[in-house]
């Protein structure tokens, strides 16, 4: 048989089904979403308020079971404009993801920044800056998922 210079390529999609348990803490967190509440946990060890709520503090390893409602407003600590498509993306690009320090909490919460025109990067850069205040905007239809919050929008 003659030796080929070009080799075959086999195309396939690896598909594997999963069923992941929410467990008590995610369940409670997303129940909060149904009532348009963002729930965090206060660590009895270090006193930090962490959001999303946790079952234990990742630094003190203290079990956490006191849920606290946190503010829906916060300060933008970092952001990124994404303009390409990828598997698992939250919405059609372009979109802005941000690091939001919700008032009264001690960590950054990740979500989208929206409610403004995102087509021109330079315009986005003028409107979205680290340090601006943002507020949660909710979807009407709640499905108990992180995207029940539509995005955070700049507060005038």
């Amino acid at each position, binding site marked *: 048989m003659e030796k080929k210079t070009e080799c075959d390529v086999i195309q396939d999609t690896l598909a594997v089904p999963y069923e992941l348990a929410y467990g008590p803490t995610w369940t409670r967190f997303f129940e909060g979403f149904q009532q348009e509440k963002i729930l965090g946990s206060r660590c009895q060890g270090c006193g930090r308020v962490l959001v999303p709520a946790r079952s234990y503090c990742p*630094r003190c390893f203290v079990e956490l079971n006191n849920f606290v409602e946190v503010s829906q407003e916060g300060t933008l600590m*970092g*952001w*990124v404009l994404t303009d390409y498509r990828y598997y*698992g993306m939250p919405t059609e690009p372009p979109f802005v*993801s941000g690091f939001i320090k919700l008032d009264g909490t001690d960590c*950054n919460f*990740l979500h989208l920044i929206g409610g403004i025109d995102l087509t021109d990067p330079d315009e986005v850069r003028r409107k979205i800056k680290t340090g601006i205040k943002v507020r949660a905007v909710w979807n009407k239809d709640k499905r108990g998922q*992180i995207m029940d919050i539509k995005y955070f929008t700049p507060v005038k």
Partner: protein
Amino acid sequence: MARPVGIVGSGQTHHGRRFDLAYPELVSEAVEACLKNTGVDPKDIDGVVYGSMPSMMEGVALTHFYFADALRSVGLPILKTETCGSTGISLAITAYYWIASGMADLLLVVGSEKMNEGDSQATMTSILEPFYQMYFISGAPGIFSLQSQSWAERFKIPADKVREAATRLSLDHHNDAFDNPYAHIKQRLTEEQINTARVITYPIRLWDVCPNSDGACAMIMASEKMAKKLTKKPAWVKGIGYAGDEYWFGDSDKVMWQTAIQASKQAYAMAGIKNPRKELDVAEVYNPFTYQEMLFYECFGFAEFGKACDLVLKGTFSRDGELPCDPSGGTLCTNPIGATGLIRVAEAAMQVQGQAGDHQIPGAKTSLAHAMGGVVQYNGVMILGSEK
């Protein structure tokens, strides 16, 4: 007490898009090159350490089973280490532990990735849980852009200056890659091409970002007695450091990044290094993104916080600068992820052995290798020296 450990030598594939070979054959290319370069008799090998990024990348789980033949691991103990982007340096550290403990004298260490076979972006979403973080930080450029922007804003570095420094790094590394026979991207660029390239995640542009590479790296690590028997000039492991953050991206500061600081401090303490910029002769910093590279310079003490841009623009980290970084072209030009960290170690070793060919830094005696992994979560550092 830990026994001294030396690196005898290594072998790499020609990195790039490698649909000319099936995956085990690619691994074999690096292993056979390594055995040839080091003159090691495979019969003397005590064990194999292997790793890739998530196996999901290649659509075959637990690839070390698939590669048993190519790794020449039949009849030998095999350890798999997988720490995402830092896999490569974790492999070298795993082998270090194994030999330093006295349980092995000669090990084959191999890292590989065939990124073009899968959808690398989709694979990276598979390392995140689907309750929360997956939606916002999947896609490596997004994560690093978020981190880099926070850094620039924290130290009030003007956007133009950051751009100028990133362009300098991109230009330098792409030129360096021409002197590395194994590098993937070999492209002569101009400042203008870099500054006006397509935006990937604002403000990161095309030439600020590493490619998807197929490739493998294999290395021989040995105890003192065995290393001295095999080569006149082993590269000695002088220090190691490794540290990881908590899982949640928003829980820790990624600008004055504790795990990067801690990993380098551990390695410096073990190697007796007090002033890294003066005492190191060359560094192979894991730099998939130009912007993030500067953040590492600061965390590793090569520059004060907020000052890396100034030093980059002064040429401190260029080939003829005070501390040349990534003379191989680095991760920016070649990134088969599971192999990348090991390539950093192999390159840092070649530098102190005086075997880096056209990208040799003259007289290099002490070098640093680094890799980062997870959702900007893990950092590993290794210091190598020509003297034990």
